[in-house]
């Protein structure tokens, strides 16, 4: 019997030490230290695992289920010729029959294989390694025979090379022994059409020997691809990598699958759409009246619930309805309420006919806006606006010598005679200026003195004026004009003039006045002749004065105003016109 003995293993010494155990268990500190040095409770996470050396490591990320899709080289099945090349079958189902071998005694393609139509029926080749397991044997050992493999796709018209390991051919090294040779091709991600087929061509460098490729039976040639054997089609999509998306199109929940994406469409619920309840509608619905519970959140009437269908007879309600004019009630609890149409003597409702009548009446008149004024006087208000009625010649406006006064133009009125004296006896105009400054306008008759050129009798005008001049060294000349204007001499006809000369002043006189008379009459050739009376005629026969013709007016109506001018200082005292026209 052995008591109190222990075995101590010391790593540094790599030897076993025997000793004795004394004391209690807590006294075995060396054993406790050794245990503390061992693997402790794991401190990792659920996504980790403990490696063999005790370290923690993460579980690898999931990359999808399923293994790789494999094709088998079925040498006994001919697929026909594609792009000038005869192909055998490459299919997912191997042929286990008697086996089919192919030989070649030169360098070249020993055999080519192609999938059936619409195989693999995928849209893409995932990038990765394709492994090829093929069985070869040679007619003799030695040499350096080898092979390499080319991967193609056939789109119906053309063979397109996808990848090849021709740069790194695999040696056929086991001589006459039929042996398995594994080679690989790095295949890039390649887009496929669903109708594309995949093809493999195997090229042999024979190195002077006859090389045999074994297929089928116990020498299954296998192509291990990067296609997945997991999900092959989902909702009609055959893309190897497929995605989910969400949307709101449509009128009901539905899944739309296109290319490699499955879109879950959940429309917003509406009167036309079955779908998700929007937060807005939720708020609306949530805000609606809660379920009515009679007596709880809706009152009763006389102890009766108002919920439900039918009529609620309420005793003690309305028993009689009356109306106040013009509203008329037939009385009772269910009266007929009526109102008569308003007329000149009845109050009531306004009929549509009367409404249209009133509506079509004149809007309120605003003077100057929708009603004109008369001579700036408003027509609104009471009273009378005196407006001269339309003048009707002979009716409310007289005629002159049977000629209407209406219209434009001038009316020649003959048969008048009289005397018109202007400013007599006061001074009409006084002009003082130096000699030689020309003619200054002194006087113009206020109205035309000649008003007709048609008469051969009458039409005589005598104009007399009193002039005053102061003695000087030169003549004071008064000029008479027949002018188109009563205020200007421009364009006026010079009819005549007379001078008061220094010799006219008697000794001792420094100022004299002279009355000068002009007579305008008609001559035998239908012109007007202006004649002047010489005030300084010294004839003793005062009964007959000498008149001299000073001017002839061929167009007296164009020059009807008598105007007088003066050439230097002088005074015009008065002008007297005697006329008959």
């Amino acid at each position, binding site marked *: 019997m052995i008591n109190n003995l222990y075995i101590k293993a010391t790593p540094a010494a790599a030897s076993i030490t025997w000793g004795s155990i004394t004391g209690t268990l807590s006294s075995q500190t060396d054993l406790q230290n050794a245990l503390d040095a061992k693997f402790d409770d794991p401190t990792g996470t659920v996504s980790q695992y403990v490696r063999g050396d005790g370290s923690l490591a993460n579980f690898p990320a999931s990359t999808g289920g399923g293994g790789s899709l494999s094709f088998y080289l079925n040498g006994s099945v001919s697929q026909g010729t594609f792009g000038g090349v005869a192909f055998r079958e490459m299919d997912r189902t191997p042929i286990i029959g008697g086996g089919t071998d192919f030989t070649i005694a030169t360098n070249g393609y020993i055999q080519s294989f192609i999938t059936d139509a619409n195989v693999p029926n995928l849209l893409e080749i995932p990038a990765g390694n394709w492994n090829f397991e093929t069985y070869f044997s040679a007619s003799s050992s030695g040499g350096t025979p080898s092979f390499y493999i080319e991967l193609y796709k056939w789109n119906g018209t053309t063979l397109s090379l996808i990848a090849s390991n021709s740069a790194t051919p695999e040696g056929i090294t086991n001589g006459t022994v039929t042996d398995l040779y594994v080679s690989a091709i790095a295949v890039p991600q390649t887009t496929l059409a669903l109708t594309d087929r995949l093809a493999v061509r195997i090229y042999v460098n024979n190195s002077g020997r006859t090389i045999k490729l074994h297929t089928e039976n116990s020498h299954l040639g296998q192509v291990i691809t990067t296609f997945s054997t997991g999900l092959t089609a989902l909702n009609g999509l055959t893309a190897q990598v497929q995605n989910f998306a969400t949307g709101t199109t449509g009128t009901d929940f539905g899944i739309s699958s296109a290319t490699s994406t499955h879109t879950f469409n959940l429309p917003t619920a509406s009167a036309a759409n079955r779908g998700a309840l929007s937060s807005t509608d939720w708020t609306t619905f949530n805000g609606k009246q809660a379920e009515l519970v009679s007596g709880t959140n809706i009152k009763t009437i006389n102890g009766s619930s108002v919920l439900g269908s039918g009529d609620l007879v309420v005793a003690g309600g309305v028993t009689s309805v009356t109306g106040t004019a013009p509203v008329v009630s037939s009385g009772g609890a269910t009266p007929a309420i009526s109102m008569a149409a308003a007329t000149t003597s009845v109050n009531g409702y306004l009929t549509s006919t009367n409404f249209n009548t009133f509506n079509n009446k004149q809007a309120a008149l605003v003077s100057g806006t929708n009603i004109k004024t008369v001579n700036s006087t408003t027509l609104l208000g009471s009273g009378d606006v005196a407006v001269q009625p339309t003048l009707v010649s002979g009716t409310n406006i007289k005629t002159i010598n049977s000629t209407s006064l209406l219209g434009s133009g001038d009316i020649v009125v003959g048969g008048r005679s009289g005397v018109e004296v202007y400013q007599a006896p006061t001074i009409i105009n006084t002009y003082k200026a130096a000699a030689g400054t020309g*003619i200054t306008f002194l006087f113009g008759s206020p109205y035309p003195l000649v008003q007709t050129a048609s008469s051969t009798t009458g039409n005589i005008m005598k104009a007399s004026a009193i002039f005053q001049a102061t003695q000087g060294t030169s003549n004071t000349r008064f000029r008479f004009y027949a002018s188109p204007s009563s205020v200007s001499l421009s*364009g006026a006809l*010079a009819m005549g003039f007379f001078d008061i000369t220094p010799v006219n002043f008697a000794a001792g006189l420094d100022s004299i006045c002279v009355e000068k008379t002009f007579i305008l009459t008609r001559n035998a050739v239908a012109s007007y002749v202006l004649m002047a009376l010489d005030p300084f005629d010294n004839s003793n026969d005062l009964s007959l004065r000498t008149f001299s013709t000073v001017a002839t007016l061929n167009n007296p109506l164009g020059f009807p105003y008598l105007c007088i001018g003066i050439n230097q200082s002088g005074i015009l005292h008065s002008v007297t016109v005697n006329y008959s026209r």
Partner: protein
Amino acid sequence: MNITKNNNSFQLDGLPMTYTIAEGTPEILSETQCHIPTNFGETFFDTSITIEGQSFENIEDWITELYK
């Protein structure tokens, strides 16, 4: 006022008559006034009247322009 000339005749603004320049010699009344022989007789004009819109300072230039 303004004179509008037309060959040997002219018109004054606002007047219905057409003055025809007649034979004879203009009578200069002052540096600014004259009598021009016309078909109506000796007619008074001064330099306040423009000719075809042109103004004149003395009557001799005015007469020259009228007879031009």
